[in-house]
């Protein structure tokens, strides 16, 4: 069975939890305020059989570990001010995403793989920007394609100067695809490489090394082999000195979530989150429960509550469920989002975080930043999301209201005997921004910006009628109509083209400004995903298909 067939057949379900003690491809070590994350990819440990991970090339398995490391560095090692990202192979830093893996993967897998790796790199930038945990790429050799994109996700890049090691984006010239893990965007947006230089660089398979790499802003510094270690260390310390990370913060170990997986992966139960897939209907129910009991209300209480507090635990669960949904349930078209519980408890948890963060609690800040990342993962998930308000305990309050605001539509059962429990909370006003920098309330009310302030000024827990008046409900219907209304909407939705829906939803979800993040997902990724389906890349004679094979690609020369 070829790898391609292996992807078309039901693949073994993927799981996304790991721990440094189980890393195959990375080494994570600590030296006071510095951490070293060293790429050491094991050739013979691909996530799926059929390819070898040569020259520190990566697949999803490698990136899952990277994502875990980024996350743990923030929660478990607040003492770390600079992370030095390097490789342990001679003359190679990282050769990028494994071409043979990409060439043999299904389109859906490739797209989700790229999205995940993009999210991981954004989480590195998020760590630097919002937590002051800086990243330094110590490129100890060839830094190609995804390897250079990974380096660009860092604050600074030091490249070894040995007469041969270069940074490069060979995708266009060699593979007829794009450096789609943020490469092109970061080149001109983040590193501010002059666009004509960027054009030359992006078509030069062998890349650019030495002084010109510095002159063109492709790297921040070069150092010969004998001085490389010292140069890296000096830069790492300088970055650390400018970091606002608090001194003396004590890390918080993140325990495994260990969900119960039933029905061959179709049901995944966590403590606060449940994912239940209906394969026949191509739908999933994703339900998130509010916390119960008293919630931590101060920095000290938040530190004491640790990793088990709802705000952290529940959103980690939601994150894991979203990843499983993306990778293990490709055919699910509509996700029904439901919440349950006591809105006051959610609001109390949010308030605790808000107060503690304002008082300088690093942990409260990390928890909120994490919630924001998970919600952005939801925004970026290519499925139709319908928020459903139909249970007696529905609870779209505070941070849970974001789920309804992230959804493409909100369906509510209008029943005066069942209060709907919608409420804006202290995190609704800007703590949980979308990729383009707006809050979900702002994005919702582009045409009526006054509503945002009105809502934020109100502490009211709304019923359906009030919520509808406030513009938070798409369709409200009474108990006679509701079930049918929802059923028909779902059946109609799952019957539409998944491609058209993906494009439509991605276009409608982000009204307003653009940021580097949205350019990566909305422009770079969109073009990349189009190119992935084109014959010039993935046809029988496409460059990606034929990479490493004896024939040379044949292109269709018509430009669109």
């Amino acid at each position, binding site marked *: 069975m070829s790898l391609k067939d292996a992807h078309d057949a039901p693949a073994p379900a993927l799981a996304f939890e790991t721990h440094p003690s189980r890393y195959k491809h990375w080494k994570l070590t600590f030296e006071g305020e510095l951490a070293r994350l060293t790429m050491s990819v094991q050739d013979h440990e691909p996530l799926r059989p059929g390819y070898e991970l040569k020259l520190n090339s990566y697949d999803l398995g490698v990136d899952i570990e990277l994502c875990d490391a980024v996350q743990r560095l923030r929660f478990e090692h607040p003492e770390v001010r600079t992370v030095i990202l390097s490789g342990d192979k001679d003359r190679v830093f990282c050769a990028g995403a494994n071409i043979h893996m990409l060439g043999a993967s299904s389109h859906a897998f490739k797209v989700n793989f790229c999205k995940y790796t993009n999210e991981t790199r954004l989480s590195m930038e998020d760590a630097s920007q919002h937590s002051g945990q800086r990243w330094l790429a110590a490129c100890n050799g060839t830094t190609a394609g995804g390897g250079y994109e990974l380096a660009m996700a860092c604050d600074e890049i030091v490249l070894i*100067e*040995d*007469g*041969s090691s270069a940074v490069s984006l060979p995708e266009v*010239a060699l593979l007829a695809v794009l450096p789609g893990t943020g490469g092109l965007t970061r080149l001109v947006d983040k590193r501010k490489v002059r666009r004509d230089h960027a054009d030359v660089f992006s078509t*030069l*398979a*062998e890349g650019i090394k030495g002084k010109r790499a510095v002159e063109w802003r492709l790297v921040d510094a070069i150092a*010969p*082999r*004998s*001085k490389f270690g010292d140069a890296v260390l000096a830069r790492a310390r300088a970055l650390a000195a400018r970091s606002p990370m608090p001194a003396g913060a004590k890390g918080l170990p993140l325990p495994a979530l260990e969900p119960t997986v039933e029905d061959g992966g179709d049901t995944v139960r966590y403590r606060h989150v449940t994912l239940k897939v209906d394969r026949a209907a191509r739908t999933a129910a994703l339900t998130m429960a509010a916390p119960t009991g008293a919630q931590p209300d101060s920095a000290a209480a938040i530190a004491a509550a640790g990793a088990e507090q709802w705000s952290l635990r529940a959103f980690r669960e939601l994150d894991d469920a979203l990843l499983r949904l993306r990778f293990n349930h490709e055919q699910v078209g509509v996700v029904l989002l439901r919440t349950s519980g006591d809105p006051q408890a959610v609001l109390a948890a949010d308030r605790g975080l808000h107060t503690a963060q304002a008082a300088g609690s690093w942990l409260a800040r990390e928890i909120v930043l994490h919630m924001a990342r998970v919600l952005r993962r939801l925004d970026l998930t290519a499925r139709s999301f319908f928020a459903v308000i139909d249970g007696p305990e529905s609870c779209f309050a505070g941070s849970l209201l974001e789920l309804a605001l992230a959804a493409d539509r909100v369906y509510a059962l209008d029943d005066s005997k069942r209060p709907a429990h919608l409420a804006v909370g202290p995190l609704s006003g800007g703590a949980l921004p979308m990729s383009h920098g707006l809050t979900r309330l702002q994005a919702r009310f582009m045409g009526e910006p006054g509503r945002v302030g009105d809502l934020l000024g109100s502490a009211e827990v709304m019923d359906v009628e009030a919520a509808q008046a406030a513009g938070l409900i798409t369709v409200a219907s009474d108990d006679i109509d509701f079930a049918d209304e929802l059923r028909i909407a779902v059946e109609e939705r799952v019957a539409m083209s998944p491609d058209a829906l993906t494009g439509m939803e991605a276009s409608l979800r982000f009204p307003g400004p653009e940021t580097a993040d949205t350019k990566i997902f909305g422009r770079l990724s969109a073009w990349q995903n189009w190119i992935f389906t084109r014959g010039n890349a993935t046809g029988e004679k496409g460059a990606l298909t034929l*990479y*490493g*094979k*004896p*024939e*040379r690609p044949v292109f269709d020369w018509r430009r669109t």
Partner: protein
Amino acid sequence: MAIASELDTLIPNNVNLSADRKLQRALEQWQPSFLRWWQDVGPEGFQGDQVYLRTAISVDTDGWAHFDHVKMPDYRWGIFLSPAEAERKIHFGDFMGQPAWQEVPGEFRNILRRIIVTQGDTEPASVEQQRRLGQTAPSLYDLRNLFQVNVEEGRHLWAMVYLLHSYFGRDGREEAEGLLERRSGDSDKPRILGAFNAPIDDWLSFFMFTMFTDRDGKYQLYALSESGFDPLARTCKFMITEEAHHMFVGETGVDRIVRRSTELAKLDPNADVRKQGGIDFATLQKYLNYWYAISLDLFGGEISSNAADFFGASLKGRFKEAQHEEHTALGQHYDMDVIEDGKVVRKEIPLRTAMNEVLRDGYVEDCQRAVNKWNRTIQDAGLTGIELRLPHRRFNRNQGIYAGLHFDVEGNPLSADEFKRRQDEWLPSEADRTYIHSLMQPVVERGKIVNWLAPPARGINGQPFDFEYVRR
């Protein structure tokens, strides 16, 4: 730079240098850098001596081998291409049948440049590796041969630089500078290929290098002399004639050791060559194993998409491509032993992807021919039970599909521990190296030679062995 007429005398060439402003401009910069490089890291301690050297002053039969005593820094490094073949057509790969390219096709500019830079980098690298050898030369004849090899490696550098200057614009000029900036063994700016970063500081290694490593060069040059890029093909074709001398130095050098060792064996009551101050066959075999394996690595991976690209793009052919029946190499396979789960398994590899191995096959055969010759020398001397052998091509490899695995000289898989335990049986030990170094005593008296080496059958250019090949 000198006026036109002087220029062609200073730099012998058949590329119309005196009328080529682009090339003049480039060389104006580069030539002084080259001379500085030669003074800095060229042969140490002999720059002021008169050496009986062959200089190519034209490509005619009587012009490519002009002999004279000359100081090495005054050597006239020239630029020669084999004469153009009228209306030459590309004769392999995807562009077969089209006229050979006289200019670099933009599509292949970068890979061609990489091919040329990689080839070019080995030339100055070997001069750097050998720079101290002169101080332990076994005879004036050998000293002269060393310097002939060195100046010709220098000329081969010029040949590659000519291509970079003439066809690759500013990037080419920068790469040409880079060829003089990298240094063998300097970890801050090493030469591109690993094998060219270890010093060659004894003459046994030098003979092995010119026998085995330069022979890789021969095969690379043959493959590139087939190139659809005509200037590269013609340049390489002319280089092959010079490379032949280097391999002659190596092949006859080892043969002269073998001959001397048979004599010393017969002198000793226990046939103990070392006792007689010579190089014993066991040590000779270990050096052979080492250099053969490291040279096999230079051909690149057995299964190589680069090799397939080079062939498909009609940039690099096979050894004597015309002798093959079919020239697209599509839809054909090559049976290769690959390693799967620690076992050797025979697999069908698409022919284009196996081109490095195809080239390596010819090389192995050529090496075997030389080894057979050495064995005949042993037999002719009446010694029995002694035979030199090429190790299996899986032995001690650091590139390709056998890299990181361990095999004995017969090609049988071994554990890393067992290889480590037994490697002194197959590769020079510290003690062996110390012994070989102890033999490296210079002999600079005319007509004399060191004890461990036999004199050559004949001298250079019809001169006797007893000739002042190097005038101090």
